[in-house]
């Protein structure tokens, strides 16, 4: 009788010894080296960009980040080279933040609609459309922005300026409204909305069904279930998706190049038609750059690389944590 409680007799699970023979070890080594290429590649990108631009960081130090001039020297030393990316850096962040602020509510609304409100047939159509939208090249977004959206953007800008001109960020000096951080930000928003929407939809769909049903059983409305269960459950995933979108917006080249006047002056008035972005700076200046200027462009690329890497690593951490199947 006492045997039942006797824990000593319960067998312990056997330790499984995995033995790899030579063929296995070779196979594993090949696969490992293949998988390591991405690790090595990322390291190489950072290293090469840094090595090639070390001279710039050495010459200019912190003023490369803070200064606001991009002047190619005359070569004989009369006009010295002066390269720095201050306005481009703040411009990159400004445009991306505008895009993110506009995209977030739309993406969350869109994801909630697809996942919880749309009928099955509409849901299928919309999710196909969503996948497709996420794959449209940014060049086409830029093209659409120039040809179609700019007229809307200009009209909205003029309206904002007339109504809310007393807000310091919105006031403009010249009443030309196209090619402003606001217009570029709007187009970037439509570019990153699909990314955020599909990540959000993914995490929303992982919400345990029984928790939602419990909400309904307790007499909750649909919004009640979303607010108390779905949103808290998907919060970190949505934030991760937002970071992914932000990373994409920070590194966007062509759309911004087509939609923004690149001006080397610190500008925080979002409707003014001047601004900047590191990636489009590189695309603009690359063609006719002198050798030293090229190094400065590579240095700018390095700064952009580090910036997006940090954002994307944060995003990867958050998304990985929230999408692990429990």
């Amino acid at each position, binding site marked *: 009788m006492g045997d039942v409680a006797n824990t000593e007799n319960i067998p312990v699970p056997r330790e499984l010894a995995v033995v790899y023979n030579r063929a296995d070890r070779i196979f594993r080594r090949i696969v490992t080296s293949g998988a390591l290429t991405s690790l090595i590649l990322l390291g190489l990108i950072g290293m090469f960009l840094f090595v090639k631009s070390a001279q710039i960081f050495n010459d200019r130090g912190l003023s490369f980040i803070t200064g606001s001039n991009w002047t190619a020297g005359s070569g004989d030393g009369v006009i010295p080279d002066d390269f720095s990316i201050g306005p481009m850096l703040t411009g990159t962040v400004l445009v991306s933040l505008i895009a993110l602020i506009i995209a977030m509510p739309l993406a969350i609304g869109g994801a909630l609609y697809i996942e919880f409100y749309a009928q099955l047939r509409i849901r299928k159509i919309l999710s196909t459309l969503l996948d497709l939208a996420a794959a449209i090249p940014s060049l086409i977004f830029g093209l659409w922005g120039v040809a179609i959206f700019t007229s809307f953007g200009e009209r909205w800008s003029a309206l904002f300026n007339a109504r809310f001109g007393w807000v310091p960020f919105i006031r403009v000096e010249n009443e030309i409204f196209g090619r402003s951080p606001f217009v570029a930000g709007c187009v970037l928003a439509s570019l990153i909305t699909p990314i955020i929407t599909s990540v959000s939809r993914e995490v929303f769909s992982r919400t345990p069904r029984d928790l939602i049903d419990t909400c309904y059983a307790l007499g909750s409305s649909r919004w009640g279930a979303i607010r108390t269960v779905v949103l808290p459950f998907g919060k970190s995933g949505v934030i991760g998706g937002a970071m992914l979108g932000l990373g994409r917006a920070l590194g966007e080249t062509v759309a911004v190049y087509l939609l923004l006047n690149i001006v080397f002056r610190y500008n925080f008035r979002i409707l003014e038609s001047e601004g900047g972005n590191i990636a489009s700076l590189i695309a603009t200046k690359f063609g006719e750059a002198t050798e030293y200027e090229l190094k400065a462009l590579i240095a700018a690329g390095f700064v952009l690389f580090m910036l997006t890497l940090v954002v*994307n690593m944060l995003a990867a951490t958050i998304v990985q944590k929230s999408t692990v199947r429990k």
Partner: protein
Amino acid sequence: MSPTVTDIQQATSIPEPTTPWARTRGEQLGTVATFLISAIAATCIVLVTGLAGIDGFGLTLFVIFVAITFVRTIRLNAKVRKDEFVKIAIFAAAVLAFSPWMSIFASVIVKGAKGFRPNFFVETMQTTTPDDELNLGGAGHAIIGSMLMVIIATVITLPLGILSGVYLTEVRGRLTFWVRFVVQSMSGVPSIVAGLFIYTTFIDFTNSFSGMAGSLALAVLMLPTVARTAEEVLKLVPDDLRSASYALGARQWRTSLMVVLPTVRSGLTTAAILGVARVIGETAPLLLTSLSSNSYVFNPFGSPIGSLPTYVFGLLQIGTENASNRAWTGALVLTLIVLALFSIARFVGGKDRR
């Protein structure tokens, strides 16, 4: 004779399942009616006042719809009312989110159709200026160049991506976490940075802009997509299959190579297709690596080479009417390629699902 199941069913009338939460016909009609009334009212307001364009119409429609809903639900309790308003807000957000994409598809089709002629696919811009009529010249060289570069990039990336996927799901070595983490964060490397990287390495080394350089830059961008999709696909292989293979005495390498990988052959094709769709429209890295050309180039080494994105981009810079018409046609072709790739991926990927 003992009673059969049907006898019992007939004896006890089974109640029909009810769905008390479903929206009644009346509620649905109410919503539709509200929408119609708002639309008519909004049209009148837009026509009478100066509120211009489709955006003004949308805003008016939204405001009137909210107002009517407010009046309609004023007798209901607070919870139901709130639910109703949230529904409108979410629907509006979804419409706003989806309308730019609809607009993009529509404008690409409408504006791209003008130059969508046979000569666009075979002729080049060698003897044609961008301003010439649309029945002259084309983007044959750009299409060939894009295809060439994307094929080389796929040939480089696919094995590496599959190896990454196999490492993450089969081998599961010590670096699993790091490989997955790096692949995730690498997918966010800005495309122009990939171009700069190839510029500072490969082009510095070979001393010329070339299609190969473009392919390498595209490969850098393609690798994370392929690796991640391959991992997702390999994850779907049931563990029973692996166990069965081990139980039959197969070693790990045979299990992976001869059981697991063949099972997901079509999934890996999907990975490659999604990778191609990711990079086919990339412009920025090609501006730094392969530049562009006006005639057919088949040799990926030694000389600049045309591609669809740089073709569109270059014509946009010129900006005259015929040039932008050509650019829109290029954009239409790009969109169609992406669409076709997605359809193929759907079709192929659908075969794996059980």
